[in-house]
């Protein structure tokens, strides 16, 4: 039971990260590696402000910091014409130093006996408090992002990822749309890191490492399991919860933690290249049949 509860809570928190990746990877059509840095930035901002007695402000400012990171990446991509992947890597690398600076040059910090955003609701609802609160945050974020995607601005961002040629010859400023898209995506990523920090009560400078791949795995699971519904944002959250559940079960059967990243990476490779692999297999069997038919 604790295993399910924990996975659901974490799934809801990391779900925001997955929605962020959904915006950059699926909507804007760029693999944005800023995420590995901006996730930690969110957590770093969150822990510093929580320690100073402002947990809610910590969450909000974390989102702002994430948006700024996204804006830097967008600037590198659009104005300085650096390839999207490299732009993300550069920002992520720079963020490592900045994240350390935010945490006062300490590689990890914890929050013992500090008041967090969860404190009040925990007292009121007991063991269900955290789940309810995470769910609440998720619902609010999903509603806001979904509204955004249906505004004129949101439509323009989607069009930019879908057909840049078209956008260039329409009156939409494609560069500006990338700024907005990456800012929103990384704000969500940082928000996810910020909530996670107060949930697990510590921040580690390397907690963002590999987050892109984990989020992609959750995204793929979400699309496969719930993508038919067209409620893509909800699908992202559900995908993340399932990923967390699998992760927890794997730990339960004592697969060492260090294997998990390898397993996740292989899973993402298979999931993304699945159509190519299927084509190859089909072509191979077609060749065999043809050769057989003409007697060679």
């Amino acid at each position, binding site marked *: 039971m604790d295993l399910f509860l924990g996975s659901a809570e974490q799934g809801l928190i990391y779900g925001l990260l997955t929605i962020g990746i959904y915006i950059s990877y699926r909507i804007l059509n760029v693999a944005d590696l800023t995420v590995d840095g901006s996730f930690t930035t969110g957590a770093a901002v969150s822990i510093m402000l929580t320690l100073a007695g402002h947990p809610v402000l910590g969450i909000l400012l974390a989102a702002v910091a994430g948006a700024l990171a996204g804006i830097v990446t967008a600037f590198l991509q659009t104005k300085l014409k650096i390839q999207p992947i490299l732009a993300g890597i550069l920002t992520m690398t720079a963020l490592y130093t900045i994240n350390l600076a935010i945490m006062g040059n300490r590689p990890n910090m914890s929050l013992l006996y500090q008041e967090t955003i969860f404190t009040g609701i925990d007292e009121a609802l007991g063991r269900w408090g955290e789940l309810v609160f995470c769910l609440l945050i998720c619902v609010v974020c999903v509603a806001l992002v979904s509204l955004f995607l249906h505004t004129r601005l949101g*439509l323009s961002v989607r069009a930019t990822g879908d*057909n840049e*040629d*078209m956008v260039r*010859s329409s009156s939409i400023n494609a560069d500006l749309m990338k700024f907005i898209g990456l800012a929103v995506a990384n704000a969500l990523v940082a928000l996810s890191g910020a909530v996670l920090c107060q949930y697990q009560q510590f921040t580690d400078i390397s907690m963002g490492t590999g987050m892109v791949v984990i989020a992609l795995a959750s995204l793929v699971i979400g699309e496969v399991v719930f993508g038919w519904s067209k409620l893509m944002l909800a699908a992202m959250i559900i995908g993340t919860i399932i990923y967390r559940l699998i992760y927890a079960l794997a730990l339960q059967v004592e697969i060492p933690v260090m294997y998990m990243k390898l397993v996740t990476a292989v899973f993402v490779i298979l999931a993304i290249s699945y159509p190519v692999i299927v084509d190859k297999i089909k072509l191979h069997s077609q060749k065999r049949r043809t050769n057989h038919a003409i007697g060679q």
Partner: protein
Amino acid sequence: MLSVNNITKIFNKKTVNERVALENVSLQMEPGEFITIIGGNGAGKSTLLNCIAGSYLVDEGYILLDGENITFQKEHKRARYIGRLFQDPLKGTAPNMTIEENMALAYMRTAKKPFSIGISKKDRDYIRTRLESLGLGLENRMKTKVGLLSGGQRQAITLLMATMTTPKLLLLDEHTAALDPATAEKVLELTKQIVRENTITTLMITHNIASALDCGNRTLMMEQGKIILDLQGEQRGSMTVEDVLELFRQKSNREFDNDRVLLS
């Protein structure tokens, strides 16, 4: 209206691949004029349209639209009053968005409020009546993703999008060349109809000399980055395709060559 003054466009300047695509080209257009442009491969037709639309900045000369200097204006800014269609039907629409979402994007061309709802009921009704005017039955498939439509259907939608809010200038670059003959005919008819109904000032590149003479009221012929012939009025009215080819021979001392040309 549109005033192009001595523009020159040189690609790969000061390299071995230097190529003068436009050389001192000037063109004055009256409001409501419909100009067709013909010319061989590499004559500079597309480059001229790209310079007017702002995809390329010119190396020399200047461009005015309704008296305003747009020579250095960004492409997306010019797009507010210049509508465009390309040869490739895939270029003009977003495949993973629905018909109505695509149309709505064009509809907000002039609207400012970015946070208002993307497609209101009023927008939807307007989009439906516009789609009905195509006569292709697309008004019943407004929630279909554009990627599922045929090239001709996509080009027809792009045409509607480009003219949704009447542009000051419409630029068509062989926009029917990738379609099968019957569909091309249909899209061309729609183009003429929309241009006529809204009296849109239009520049249309075509490889079809017959339709160049048939559409619009003025025809330009380009060759090696220059406008070598400007047909209008009575002279144009009495021209046949043969006459045009003969004129080209006289002007350039060679045969008209365009790999997509249709002499029918």
